[in-house]
């Protein structure tokens, strides 16, 4: 009987622990969301979207940072997504079962988890040092390099989910392989590939470390990508680390907008994926 009671106690303890662990995880999420929501909502003003980042002690907005982030994300997607889709196509279709595809698929997963600060250093060495100055282009390249492995991975996975009958049907019609890929497989996998790109956008929108020494920052309005460019994450970093209350408030407002963007994109992607599955 004693052994049996001991076993039952162990069972109850383990399952209380599992429940507590889940609550533990959810509490952090709620705490972080609540903090950002409260602090960010208090700091939201219309001028956030109409004025430039201010010098210390005065009020202002984040217009130049929003513009810079949007420009770099857009350029990052334009550079990273096509290369990613092409590489993913090689892994799933044209190079399937080749040694190159196996190695690339493996290395891509490592690039996917590689420290983003190292990617920032790499682009610094490659672009900033060569060009002699920080620039929005360098920032966009760093973001593209983070987006790339995400798109490669999702493209490969979503192409593999397309049933072989569709390929065979295409070949039976006499279509060359590239047209099967382009006109049949891409169409079938389109929503899944788009989902991957959107997830990638959500990821690069909040990336700070790779922009610190590529795009740097810019306190003033600058539309040129060939110069240091303001961007939301680095502005948040600098303002949060500063001793000024006005800057802290702006940092929270920026964090709020960033968080809302990232979470809405993530939830949207999941809803789309679920719809696709049904």
């Amino acid at each position, binding site marked *: 009987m004693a052994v049996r009671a001991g*076993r*039952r106690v162990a*069972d109850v303890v383990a*399952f209380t622990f*599992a*429940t*507590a*662990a*889940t609550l533990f*995880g959810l509490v*952090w*999420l709620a705490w*972080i969301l609540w*903090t*950002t929501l409260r*602090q960010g909502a208090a700091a939201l003003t219309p001028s956030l979207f109409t004025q430039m980042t201010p010098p210390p002690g005065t009020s202002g907005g984040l217009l130049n940072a929003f513009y810079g982030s949007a420009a770099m994300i857009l350029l990052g997607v334009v550079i990273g997504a096509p*290369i990613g889709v092409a*590489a993913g*196509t*090689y892994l799933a279709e*044209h*190079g399937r079962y080749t040694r*190159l595809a196996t190695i*690339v*698929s*493996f*290395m891509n*997963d*490592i690039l996917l*988890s*590689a*420290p983003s*600060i*190292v*990617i920032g*250093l*790499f682009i610094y*060495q490659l672009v900033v040092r060569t060009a002699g100055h920080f620039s929005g282009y360098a920032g966009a390249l760093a973001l593209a390099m983070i987006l790339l*492995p995400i798109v*490669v991975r999702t493209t490969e996975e979503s192409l593999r989910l397309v049933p072989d009958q569709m390929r065979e049907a295409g070949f039976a019609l006499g279509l060359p*392989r*590239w047209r099967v890929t382009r006109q049949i497989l891409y169409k079938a996998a389109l929503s899944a590939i788009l989902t991957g790109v959107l997830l990638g956008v959500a990821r690069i929108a*909040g990336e*700070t*470390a790779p922009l*610190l020494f590529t795009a*740097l920052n810019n306190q003033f309005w600058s539309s040129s990508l060939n110069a240091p460019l303001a961007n939301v*994450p680095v502005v*948040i*970093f600098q303002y*949060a*680390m500063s001793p000024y209350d006005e800057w*802290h408030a702006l*940092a929270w407002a920026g*964090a709020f907008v*960033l*968080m809302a963007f*990232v*979470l809405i994109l*993530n939830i949207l992607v999941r809803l789309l994926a679920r719809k696709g599955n049904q």
Partner: protein
Amino acid sequence: MNASAAQSTELGPAARRSGAGADRLFQLITAVAAWFVLLLLGGAALSMAWGGRLAFQTFGWHFITARDWDAVGGKFGAFVPIYGTLVTSAIALIIAVPVSIGIALFLTDIAPRWSRGPIAIAIELLAAIPSIIYGMWGLFVFAPFMATHVEPWLTTHFASKPLIGPLFDGPPIGIGMLTAGIVLGIMVIPFIAAVAREVFSAVPAPLRESAVALGSTRWEILSRVTLPYTRSAIIGAIFLGLGRALGETMAVTFVLGNAHDLSISLLMPSNSIAAAIANEFTEADTDLYRSSLIALGFLLFVVTFIVLTIAKLLLLRVNRQLGRTN
């Protein structure tokens, strides 16, 4: 109708030829893109090694073992950031591993079926929150919380204990290795939990059912069937989490304090490789300083590469066992 059919048969061979050419071109484009991924990874490693060569040449092995980081005197030893990186990552894993396994167990065995999807998504969202927001929250909310509620308690209860005492002996300032480790742990949970949940639910039902038939409690099923069966995947997931923790930058930069003094106490500010680079790179005014920071980046890259390779190999093996090709 007939005419067009005849035409297409006439054009057949030519179309096929141009199709073959286009096929080769398409194949080439995709192969180049695939090579490009390898090129980026190799290029990053080479450029770090090249950028750090001045530091490696100047200091040799002392770069890793020396403790002094003196920008004015031009002496750079990376021991403190390396130590800080390892300690914070260790704290992160100590927290994240049991919690992640608990979450996976909850989601596969305990939670009502309707609630599993939403809870899993909520845990995944922990990974979606940008690390800069973890950092801000850590600096403004969590560090003060640690300083007022947790750290004084730790000091009064543990500082006088033998062996572990020095770890908890320090001023309760909130910023330090313990706080950074906890924040890292939260950030790593979703990565480990996702893999653990996936492999837990892939345990063959007959295996679990036979354990049930033998009269096992649910705890015994976990500890004697599920965990042994999924061991390599769980270890793989832990390495994946470790890889993330080692390289995480912004959250750690906010709450670690950028101190270059070695201290045993977990309550003291310290430094990590990633945080040192993020804090100091734009201020590095000499070639040797900049090179030392890039050399740090090289070390981080090599270590995370090894850790992630181990993770990936373990997870690949599991996938093969489960009969998946990918």
